[in-house]
């Protein structure tokens, strides 16, 4: 997935693009190459993006999990043959290991084609079938390759001659070795060099040994071949050289034939990569219940039942419930709500759905209507500044803002999560109002999540809010965080609504502090202070 210019590293980290990459990763090296080459669709390419997403979503209804698993297994076993192709294409004699890899690649393509036949165009072609037929003669067993004598009669003859010469030599050598062993009273000589203890010798050393070292108590020896054996050894080596020559000639001839099919093979492997990529996308779509979005020409991120998949997956693994959300975003809006109410998750849901749609992929929602953007950016919590730790939290955020403003193109999608939360609230509000105005002038849409009050009104923009706690959770203060999370989840209404202005009458933060185990006296005093301030304002 090519992200340069579309999504910077910090933004990718904030929406956990690594998780999506992992979930979408194809099974083979060819598929991974196709995956890495994927480019986002930009404004004006709605038709192409819609075609891509619809095709994947349609296939997701046609292919079942069993077939997808079988395809993935088959694709994962497709060997990487770039080195072999490179060697053969520059005229080098192919190695037998190259031929095995080519055979296996052809096998994999045939199996993939059988599995995808009713659903999409095959990867195999006349070239790959001809190549397969050419190498097939060397198939041994189900998966092996041997440069079989059936490739060439001269090779067969050379091998027969070598076998005869090797047997003749081995017979002569065995005769000498047996004679030596018998002389020394041993069953066999087990090593090329062997020790003979002097005190075991009754008839002296046998004739056919060469002494390498002589010591007071032993001899270190090796077998010495006689004239006849040396002649047979030379004959064996000559026969082996002929075999080598014939094998090279056969490989050379096969290599020349393969070269004629290389273009076709290359195209077939590229197609295999595309199929692998498609299968990975279909698997993702099925696994996470994604739908093809409607793509619109306007800047819009709207969906019903949207999910942020990394969190959804994590909660599912823990057996916990995930609350889907609905959003209809067509401007740079403000989002407010209580702590742990899901503001950041809402932003990540929007960002990740827009991100997937930009790559022509189905999105995790019940339905969606998405525009295409020139870029997606994230500022605030979750996007680390690239300027290191010498700056304060606020300064780091400002530097990242500066970088974003200098690179962000028109018609971008931006998510700002609690920017300026660590500075003076009055100045934070002023900065956010000014930033919203600047980004809107560039045609950007997105969400600005904040606890600071009055921004939407001051910036004259839409205001959304998480509904928040339905009531204060009943669960008593506890050290059991899982129980606290469960109680909080039951009490929180995560839905997002468009509001006229923020409702400041709730004290959700104080309730949360109580739920997380802060001393009851502190909590009561906090409520008293909050209510007094609220009454005074009213």
């Amino acid at each position, binding site marked *: 997935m090519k992200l340069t210019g579309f999504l910077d590293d910090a933004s990718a980290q904030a929406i956990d693009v690594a998780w999506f990459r992992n979930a979408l990763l194809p099974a083979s090296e060819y598929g991974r190459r196709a995956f890495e080459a994927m480019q986002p669709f930009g404004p004006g390419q709605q038709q192409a993006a819609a075609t891509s997403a619809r095709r994947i979503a349609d296939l997701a209804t046609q292919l079942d999990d069993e077939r997808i698993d079988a395809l993935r297994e088959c694709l994962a076993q497709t060997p990487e043959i770039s080195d072999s192709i490179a060697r053969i294409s520059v005229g080098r004699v192919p190695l037998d*290991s190259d031929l*095995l890899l080519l055979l296996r690649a052809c096998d994999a393509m045939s199996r993939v084609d059988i599995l995808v036949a009713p659903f999409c165009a095959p990867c195999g072609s006349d070239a790959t079938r001809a190549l397969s037929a050419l190498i097939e003669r060397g198939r041994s067993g189900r998966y*092996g390759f*041997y440069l079989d004598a059936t490739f060439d009669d001269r090779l067969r003859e050379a091998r027969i001659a070598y076998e005869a010469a090797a047997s003749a030599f081995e017979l002569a050598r065995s005769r000498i070795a047996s004679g030596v062993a018998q002389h020394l009273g041993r069953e066999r000589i087990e090593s090329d060099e062997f*020790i003979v*203890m002097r005190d075991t010798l009754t008839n002296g050393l046998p004739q056919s040994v060469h002494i390498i070292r002589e*010591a007071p108590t032993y001899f270190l020896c090796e077998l010495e071949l006689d004239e006849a054996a040396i002649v047979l050894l030379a004959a064996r080596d000559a026969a*082996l050289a002929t075999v080598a020559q014939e*094998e*090279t000639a056969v490989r050379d001839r096969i290599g020349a034939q393969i070269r004629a099919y290389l273009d076709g093979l290359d195209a077939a492997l590229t197609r295999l990569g595309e199929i692998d990529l498609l299968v990975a996308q279909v698997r993702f779509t099925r696994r996470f219940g994604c739908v093809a979005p409607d793509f619109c020409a306007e800047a819009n991120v709207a969906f019903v039942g949207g999910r942020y998949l990394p969190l959804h997956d994590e909660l599912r693994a823990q057996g916990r419930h995930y609350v889907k959300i609905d959003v209809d975003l067509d401007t740079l809006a403000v989002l407010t709500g209580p702590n742990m109410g899901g503001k950041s998750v809402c932003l990540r849901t929007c960002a990740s759905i827009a991100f997937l749609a930009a790559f022509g992929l189905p999105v995790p929602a019940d339905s969606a209507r998405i525009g295409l953007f020139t870029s997606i950016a994230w500022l605030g919590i979750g996007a680390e500044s690239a300027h290191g730790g010498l700056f304060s939290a606020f300064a780091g955020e400002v530097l990242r803002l500066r970088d974003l403003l200098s690179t962000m193109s028109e018609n971008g999608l931006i998510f700002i999560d609690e920017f300026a939360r660590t500075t003076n609230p009055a100045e934070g509000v002023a900065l956010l109002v000014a930033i919203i105005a600047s980004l809107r002038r560039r045609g950007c849409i997105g969400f600005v999540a904040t606890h600071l009050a009055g921004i939407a009104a001051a910036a004259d923009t839409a205001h959304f809010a998480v509904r928040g706690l339905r009531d204060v959770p009943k669960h008593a203060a506890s050290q059991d965080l899982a129980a606290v999370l469960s109680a909080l989840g039951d009490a929180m209404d995560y839905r997002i609504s468009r509001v006229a202005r923020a409702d400041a009458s709730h004290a959700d933060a104080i309730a949360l502090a109580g739920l997380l185990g802060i001393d009851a006296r502190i909590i009561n005093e906090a409520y008293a202070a909050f209510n007094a301030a609220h009454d005074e304002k009213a």
Partner: protein
Amino acid sequence: MMVGEALLALAERAACVDLAVVGTAKNAGKTVTAKAIMQAAQLRGDVIGVTSIGRDGEAVDSSDNGRKPRLYLQRGALVATALGVFSPSPALEFLDITDRVTAAGTLAIARLRTDGFVELVGPPTAAGIRDALRRLHRCGATRTILDGALDRVAALAGGSEAVVVAVGASGVSTLGEALDDIAALVAKLSLPPPDPDRVAVRLDGALTAARAMEIARDHRDAVVVVRDPTQVALSGKALLGLFDRLDVRVERPLRVIAVSIASIGRDRTFAPREFLHGVARRTQLPTFDVYAGAAA
């Protein structure tokens, strides 16, 4: 005395199908012993699968240009070695090309279709070795034989192979010193697994002299458990002294069944019979001399 057959018989008595020969140093007769086992196994009709931990079997020692025994295998043998060291002729039957990378390229499994020389460059890691042995069996090997340097023996820890320790005369000055070193080494490689009923001090890392002293001081009669024998970072007399004071156990033991000797080193030789019997006495294990066709 056929050493290869005797070693196979010992392995069988220990209920092991697969064998590994690990050598203490260069010229310890590791490859000679492995060859004797391979020949004996092939004579018995076993389909052998052969590999090494790292590099082995070159005609000339690539590290110091010394002459080395080449590995000559009979047809039918399977080898797991790097693509970079396969000789193109005579052609082998390629059965599997793995995604494991060795010092000489990708690891492949092939069958010899004619008798011939092979060079072994196996995977350097424990996981790689396990994978190579598994693949050899899957490709039809009924018995695997591993040729491995001692510094990589951790790869075998906890495995089911019978281990033969090959020891030589190189690198020591006297026979007494050699026997001390060998006795300590074999004792270390033969460390037993922990007794579940006894309280033990478990060490995450290596058992060094300093740690051993600390433990001996703080925990009298303690059982010390380390991951595998290579985690005991002592040798020679110091190690033998440690074993007198501490009961050391290993979580992943080796199954050492025998020792093989090479009495003639490049820089030193010992009288073969004295060395053979000395090693047998000190290690209390069946000891063999492939060169002399002798056992003790």
